[in-house]
């Protein structure tokens, strides 16, 4: 049998992605759909094998009206997100710019900056920051606490919590730094030369060349950071969902509903950010 080249290519293409397609259906699509269906039922470990008994939106109503823990955790996640994302982005951009500088030992610094990616084991880091009963890891025994106490007085614990959290946030910016460096490398040096010839200072070169050229990368990074925060090890919604899923009353419908609400929230959030940020994103070759 003879086929046209186009058909041949199409078939080959499907061949290459076929394994992924099967994997996607079995390990993502079907579980997700089944999860949505289960969330509308009163299924539990006792009646798994029986036909599904639909109870409408009762699980969802329960999540928002009866459950006293879910909604606060959800709000906490959103609040942390709004605070963390700009900090992480600003910090990782600054570190990426620093790491690009041509100084002695540059590769060593770059290797250190990628460290959180490699050992950024949430489980391990969590233990580290939880040590000394939540005391400041940085300032242990260095007299700094007593020093700060004089100025901050009662607000010292809040301040320490803030610092601890900041360091913790910075430790979560490994992949973002990496993406920014890749983005910075891809900017055409000719653009900088042109700007320099036109008399632009380093400051305005950053705002007028680097930032616009980096905006697609910025979009990728924003989305990545959001997803990362939503699925972070320390996210209390996730801990709660895990707890609920394997609780002794063995309900399966209710945790399914929580999972689905959470998934929808992420989905909507990402779409909104994508459209809003996408508007100010500059792509080379446009305009």
């Amino acid at each position, binding site marked *: 049998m003879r086929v046209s080249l186009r058909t041949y290519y199409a078939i080959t293409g499907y061949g290459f992605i076929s394994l992924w397609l099967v994997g996607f259906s079995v390990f993502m699509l079907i*579980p997700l759909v089944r999860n949505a269906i289960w969330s509308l039922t009163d299924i539990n470990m006792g009646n798994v094998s029986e036909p599904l008994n639909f109870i409408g939106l009762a699980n969802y109503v329960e999540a928002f009206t009866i459950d006293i823990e879910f909604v606060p955790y959800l709000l906490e996640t959103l609040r942390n997100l709004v605070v963390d994302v700009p900090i992480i982005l600003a910090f990782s951009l600054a570190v990426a710019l620093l790491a690009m500088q041509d100084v002695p030992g540059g590769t060593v610094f770059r290797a250190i900056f990628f460290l959180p990616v490699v050992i950024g084991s949430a489980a391990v880091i969590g233990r580290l920051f939880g040590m000394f009963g939540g005391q400041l890891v940085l300032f242990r025994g260095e007299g700094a606490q007593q020093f700060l106490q004089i100025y901050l007085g009662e607000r010292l614990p809040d301040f320490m919590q803030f610092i601890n959290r900041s360091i913790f946030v910075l430790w979560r910016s490994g992949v973002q730094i990496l993406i920014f460096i890749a983005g910075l490398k891809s900017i055409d040096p000719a653009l900088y030369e042109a700007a320099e010839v036109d008399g632009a200072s380093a400051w305005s070169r950053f705002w007028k060349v680097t930032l616009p050229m980096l905006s697609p990368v910025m979009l990728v990074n924003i989305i990545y950071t959001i997803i990362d925060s939503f699925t972070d090890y320390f996210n209390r919604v996730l801990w709660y969902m895990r707890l609920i899923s394997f609780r002794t009353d063995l309900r399966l419908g209710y945790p399914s509903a929580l999972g689905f609400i959470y998934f929808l929230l992420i989905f909507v959030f990402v779409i909104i950010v994508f459209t809003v940020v996408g508007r100010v994103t500059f792509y080379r070759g446009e305009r």
Partner: protein
Amino acid sequence: MTRLWWFLRRRVGKFLLRAVIILLLVDTAFIFLMPLLRMLSTSVMHVMDLYDPTVVWIPRRWSWENYKLVFQALEYPLSFKNTFLLAGVAAVLQTLSCAVAGYGFARFQFPGRDKLFLLVLFTMIVPPHAIFIQLFILFKSLPSFGLFAHSKNWLDTYLPFYVPEAMGMGLRGALFVFIFRQFFKGMPWELEDAALIDGAGPFRVFWNIMLPPAQPAILVVFLFSFVWHWNDSLQPAIFLSRPELFVMTQRLAEVEAALADMRYRAMWGTGAIMTAAVLTIAPLLVLYVLAQRYFVESIERTGLIG
């Protein structure tokens, strides 16, 4: 005179700028290294040192007691072997399958390709927690065909970590498909065309022509996959319940839970937990020190962004 002044100012200014940049670099490096150093130094301290406010970084009474104890508590040789087996095989399978899928998305025209690729991106935003009940049920119902004496289904085997990974799914599989697609999209067509004209089949072209230059992407993806599997604590906790299959993160959680029961955990436990943390990530640190040079280079050559 003014010229000399101007010259000096320029030189000094440049020197100062460099000094500031290096200072900032050292500062930032310290932020990244500090927790690690703190972890190491606490792990070799005697309990007395932990109570002693004059001891900051360097222990006054060195103690390997923690290591002896935690090495046993973690069942280190066994859990090392298990974690290595799980993360290593999963990472190899995931790297290969994601490269294949990424190549398919990058180089072939077929109906629905872009919509399917949107599904890849969609996979990224589904939190594992939204489907883990379903996966649990699924793996419980899948037969293991007598491959394992102790389990008739996929639970308590490493199959839940191998099979999805071999199909381009699993832990952040979508991100890896994305990286490979971007990489292959950036490669020149000429080599492929030449090989096709010489009569090589598509899979041969992929294997012999496209994969070797993709080395940086392969290295980055493999390292990420390995590290993330090594550090994952959610999936092992759900799919593995037999102690002889436990991975490092599970042991770590166990050690911590045991210490939490102790009344005097406050300081003594801190040292032990830090030691457990050091032992858990030590293999990753060794791996990183070895691969670090290639890794940093690869990141820069991967062209992560198309």
